[in-house]
Each structure stands twice: as C-alpha cells, then as structure tokens.
C-alpha cells in the first residue's frame, strides 16, 4: 500500500485512484463537457438569457439563497451554542437528532413541509426558505459547535472582567473566534441553497431556481440548448466556489480539537430541547399527513399503496418501487465504498493534488447537470446507456463517492506509518499489512461510508429525475409524482411513500451512528 516516503510505492498507489477517476470522468466530466459543447455549438450562449423565465430563475435563486442562508445561520447559532456544551446530558442524542435533517432525502423534507405548513404558504418562497433552513441548520451546528466548544469560557470572562457587556464580549471575542467556522457554514449553506433542486421542485410552486429551470427547459419545454447553457453557467460558478473553498483549510464538520470544560448551562439545555423538538415536528407532521386528511383519520393512502389500485393515474406498486430503490442503494454502496477505499488509500498518501480535486467534482457538479449531461452523452450507439437499468445506481455511486472519500481518507491518513512498518518487519506482505492494520483501523469509517452511500442513493432525486423511466421509478421520484398531483388520495399516498423513504433512510443512517468507536474517535 502506498507510502508517501517511498516514491515507487506512491507511484503504484496511483493505480488505486484509477477506478474512481474513470467513474468521475465518464459520468461527470464527459457529460458536463458534452453539455458545454452543446452550449458552444448553439446560438443560445448569449440568446438564452433573454428567454422568458431565465431572469426570474436567476433572481429567485440569488434572493432565496441569500435569505435562506441568513435565516439558516441565525437559527443555527443558538443550537450551535447549546450543543457546544459537551457536558450537557443528552448532548449526543440532541446532536444526532438535529443532524438528521441534513441527511434526509430532499423530497422527504419537501413532503414533510407540505404536510406541516398551512395552505397559504405551503408553496413559494416562504416554504422554500423554511425547508432550506430546516435542512441546513445541521451544517451550522456541526461546523460551528465544535469550534465554539474550543473557545475557553474564561476568555469571555476575561472580556467581561475588562468591562465588556455580554453582547460586547460576544461581538468582540466570541464572534471573531467563530469567524472561520461561520464563513465555512455560510459557504456550504449558500452552496446547498443555490443548487437546491428537490426542495424547490416540491415547494417552489411557480418559483424556480436555476436547477429547476434546467429541468423544466430540458424535460418540459425540450429546450436542451437553453438548459445546457444554464447548467454550464451554474457549474462554472459552482466549480470556482468549490476550488476556492477546497483550497483553503476551512473548518468543516469536525469534532476534533481541544474542548474546553464548559459548565452545564440551564439555557443550553432549554435551547437543545427546543431544537430537538423542532427537528422532530416536520417528521411527525409527515407521518400524520399520510393518515389524516381534511380533519379525518384515514388509511386510504396506505391501502392504495399496499393493494392493486384501479384509480386512474394512481397505480403505485410500492413493494416494487421499494425493492428497486433498495437494490439501487445496495449497488451504489457496493461500488462507491470499495472505490472510495481504493481512492483514499492513494489520496491519504498524496493530498491536495489535481487528482484529489477531480475526485471531489461530483460534490460541486449539480446533480441536474450531471443527469442532463448523461442523457445527452449516452444516447447513441455504441454508448446508448440511457435505458440501462444499471445507470441510475452507478450515477448514485458517483454522487456518493466524494462523501465516501471524505469519510475514509482523513481516518486513513491518521494511521501512523510506524504501525505498518512494525507489521512489515514481522513478515506481513503489503496486502497483509493493509488487511491487518489499515482495514481494522478504518472499519468504523467504512461502516459510516456504507450508511452514507445507502442514504445518498435512496434519496437521490436530481440526476435520477432525468434517468428513470416510467417502469423504473425510485421512491423519491414516486413521492414527487404523487404529491405533484391533485386530490387527497394522491397526497395521502405521496406522504405514505415519503414515510417509507424516511424509514429506510433512517435505517441506512443507523450504520453511521453505530460506528462511533472508530479510529477517528481515538
């Protein structure tokens, strides 16, 4: 296995990155280049911007991104402060619960708020901003709380002792020390909101972000050139942001570092309880929405899903859709995790290379652009894969790959080289060293990666909405289709499928919480 100290071994180690590289190039880089070529070939490069709806989409994207980010960061500060008190009883439970929304499929969040919000605001800007805040508050908590926990309370006491009021001490001491973490949170949340697709498809009503506009142009209006131009323009902006962000050592989703001893604070408990309850409310609303309609309890939606329906337009074979989603998730994890481990084995030895960043491209490439690009690229012989059953799970694997690498690579890179040397001096071959030293020490991270891959595949909606056919719908596609129809029965059934998606996603995420005792924790 590669060692940074040995150039020859490191050279061989590059081979481990080949499978991941091939996947990313074939399913992200080539499709995106195909999109770009359509843009260049067409006269729409400049003309598209004057078409109706485009300026509105840009304006809505910018406005909702700024508003959503602002609301998310403001709402996230209080729970971030509360959860920086590690001595608080139930701290880990509250942290886990408040993190769950970020891991949920976007259509589940959309369905939950369709069930929760009153009819007057259930679609439109307000609904989108609330859903984005719910979805992304976890980013603020997980990014800011660990840094806040490292700020010694005595530093604030020192400021107060020198005459500063509570607010002045916060502004002049706490806030500057939180600034890097806050900037990271703003960058991530802003990126998530700007490229939001599922939530806006579900809750946007007449409003559309650029992502949704790409989908509308390509699928509803058949304006492939216009959709390509928009997708490429967004990708360029996203790529610049991502490269700038990855280039800096930003604080992100870390729990490491010195934690100062914080006294338990009654207000922190109250805030943590409120945050936990508020996180649970939309989930409860989602479940209730599947069994309650117009003030009456009913199982009509569930009956529709579990029996042969003769209602026109509402024939949903739930077991079939569920099995397909689970199979796709299993295949995606079976591809993403081994490829991610192989890539991390290389990446741990050679960080911050161009290759490293190429492998992170799926993080920055919008799922909609990737989906559209694949549809355009692989639609003629000998590469006519558009109707292949395996295409969605492989694309899911590519989407999951950067997350797998981000989970495994830091853990792998922290394994002391002398452990491998010790095993080698005892006679272990390189493969045995890897199997008996590396693998056991990264086993916790591998379990987390499996859980994440399953959850990502189960909830993937952006690319899948371009790739599935009528007879190969997944759970998220079915949820969106049902909730996009009028009528109480469709709505009940849509929420029912969303509940099923929620449950299987939570089971997948249970993998990630079971693997706490990993090398990273030590």
């Amino acid at each position, binding site marked *: 296995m590669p060692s940074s100290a040995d150039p020859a071994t490191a050279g061989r180690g590059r081979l481990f990155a080949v499978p991941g590289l091939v996947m990313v190039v074939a399913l992200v880089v080539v499709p995106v280049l195909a999109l770009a070529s359509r843009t260049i070939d067409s006269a729409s490069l400049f003309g598209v911007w004057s078409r109706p709806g485009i300026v509105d989409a840009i304006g809505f994207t910018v406005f909702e991104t700024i508003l959503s980010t602002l609301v998310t960061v403001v709402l996230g500060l209080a729970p971030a402060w509360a959860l920086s008190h590690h001595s608080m009883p139930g701290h880990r439970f509250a942290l886990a619960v408040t993190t769950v929304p970020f891991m949920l499929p976007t259509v589940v969040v959309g369905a939950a708020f369709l069930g929760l919000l009153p009819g007057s605001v259930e679609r439109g800007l307000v609904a989108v901003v609330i859903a984005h805040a719910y979805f992304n508050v976890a980013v603020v908590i997980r990014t800011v709380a660990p840094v806040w926990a490292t700020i010694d309370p*005595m530093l604030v006491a020192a400021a*107060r*002792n*020198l*005459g*500063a009021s509570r607010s002045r001490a916060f502004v002049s001491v706490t806030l500057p020390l939180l600034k890097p973490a806050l900037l990271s949170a703003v960058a991530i949340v802003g990126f998530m909101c700007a490229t939001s697709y599922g939530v806006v498809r579900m809750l946007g009503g007449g409003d559309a972000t650029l992502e949704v506009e790409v989908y509308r142009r390509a699928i509803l209006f058949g304006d492939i050139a216009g959709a390509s131009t928009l997708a490429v323009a967004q990708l360029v902006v996203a790529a610049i942001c991502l490269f700038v962000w990855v280039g800096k050592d930003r604080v992100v989703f870390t729990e490491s570092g010195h934690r100062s001893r914080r006294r338990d604070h009654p207000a922190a408990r109250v805030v943590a309880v409120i945050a936990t309850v508020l996180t649970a409310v939309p989930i409860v609303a989602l479940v209730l929405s599947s069994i309650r309609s117009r003030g009456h309890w009913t199982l009509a939606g569930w009956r529709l899903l579990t029996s042969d329906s003769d209602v026109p337009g509402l024939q949903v074979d739930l077991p079939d859709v569920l099995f397909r989603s689970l199979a796709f998730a299993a295949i995606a994890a079976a591809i993403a995790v081994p490829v991610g481990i192989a890539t991390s084995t290389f990446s741990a030895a050679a960080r911050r290379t161009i290759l490293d960043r190429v492998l992170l491209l799926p993080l920055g490439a919008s799922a909609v652009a990737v989906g559209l690009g694949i549809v355009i690229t692989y639609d003629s012989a000998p590469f006519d894969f558009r109707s292949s059953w395996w295409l969605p799970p492989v694309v899911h694997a590519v989407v999951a790959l950067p997350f797998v690498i981000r989970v495994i690579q830091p853990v792998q890179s922290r394994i002391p080289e002398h452990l491998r040397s010790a095993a080698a001096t005892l006679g272990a071959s390189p493969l045995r060293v890897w199997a008996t030293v590396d693998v056991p020490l990264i086993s916790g991270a591998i379990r987390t990666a499996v859980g994440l891959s399953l959850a990502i595949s189960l909830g993937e909606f952006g690319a899948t909405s371009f790739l599935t056919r009528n007879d190969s719908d997944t759970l998220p596609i079915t949820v969106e289709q049902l909730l996009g129809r009028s009528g109480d029965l469709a709505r009940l059934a849509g929420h029912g499928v969303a509940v099923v998606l929620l449950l299987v996603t939570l089971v997948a995420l249970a993998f990630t919480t079971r693997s706490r005792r990993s090398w990273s924790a030590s």
Partner: protein
Amino acid sequence: MERVVIGLELDAVSVAHDGRTLIDHLSFGVERGSTTALLGPSGVGKSSLLRVIAGIDRPTSGRILLDGADVTDAPIHRRRIGLVFQDNQLFPHLSVADNVAYGLRNAATREARRSWRGTRTHERVHELLSIVGLADRGDDPVGILSGGEAKRVALARGLAPTPGALLLDEPLTGLDRALHDRLMEDLASILRTTGTTALIVTHDESEARFLASATVRLG
C-alpha cells in the same frame, strides 16, 4: 496616626464548588494601594475565591466591598475588579496592543468608552506596555509571545482600565527560575508604581513575602 483605608473587603464570604464548601465565612480587607497575598495549598479554593471576587461566580453567602461599596451583586463588567488569569487568557485574535486596549475600548459605560477615544487609548497602551517592558511589541500577535511576555501583557491589560482592585491568580507560576525572579521584582515595582490595590494568589511563601505587605492563609 495615619488611618488605614480599606480598598477591597470580604465580609463573611463563603464559596462552594460542585456542592462542596471550599471557603466558609472568610473575612479580610486589603489596604487601598497595597498588596495582600492569599496563601494556601492547592485545592483549598484560592482560585475559586478570586473568581467569586471578580464576579465570574457567586458566593454562597457574604459580601464583597470595593472602596466601601457593596459590589456582591454587581455584574462582572461593572464592578471594576480586574483579574489576571493564571493562564493569561489573552485574546488570540488581537495584537498585543489591542489586548491591552480591550478594556478601554469596551468599557462598561458609554462615558468611559468616550473618554478613551482617539489618541488617549494609544497613549495609555504605550504607557502600560512601557511599564511592563514591551513598548516595542504592540503590533505583535500574542501567539508568538514567550511565557514571561504573555504574563506581562496580561498584567498590562489588567491594569489598563485602572481597576479599583486587581486580582492576580498565581502570576509567576510556570516560569523558569531566572524569569520568575526577574518578573517578581518587576511585578512588585509595577504594583507599587501604579498604586494598585492588589490581591495575589500564590502557594509560595517567599513570593508572598516579597510581593505583599499582608498575608491571608487558607487551609
């Protein structure tokens, strides 16, 4: 005969930590402009007492008076009792000069902040840094300071807003012998020069004798 004026006074103060009483009905006074040493072994509650006097924690009973006024219930930022922390607690995001200026720019009252506007803050910071021997280090980040330099900055920062009393929590602990002796002499000189009412926590008898005109023993 000259009348003794008490600057800082503790009246039957009790201190508890995690439900355990550390100090029970302690009373003593520190003469205005003088230094008193608080002596005692580790774990006896010396630092806890300083936190209570500074207003970070509350006493379980008793009163704390500064220049005759009861400040027991005064909020930490308004009681005018400075504290030099054992581990300095310098603000890592501010320069040496900005650390020293912090208490001037963030004073509790608007009038006080207004009075320190303009060049007065700069002059005061320069004066304090000169006293502690770091006049040319104002622009340095605090992260590059040695242990002794950091102590001096913490002392200058504590003295800058001219507190009614200054509490020093083991200010010479953790320094090597030569630095310890040099800083002890400087500290005695600075406290004398500035006429500060000071209460110093230490567990070193010789340190207490050198720095203080009176001693209070705990434990």
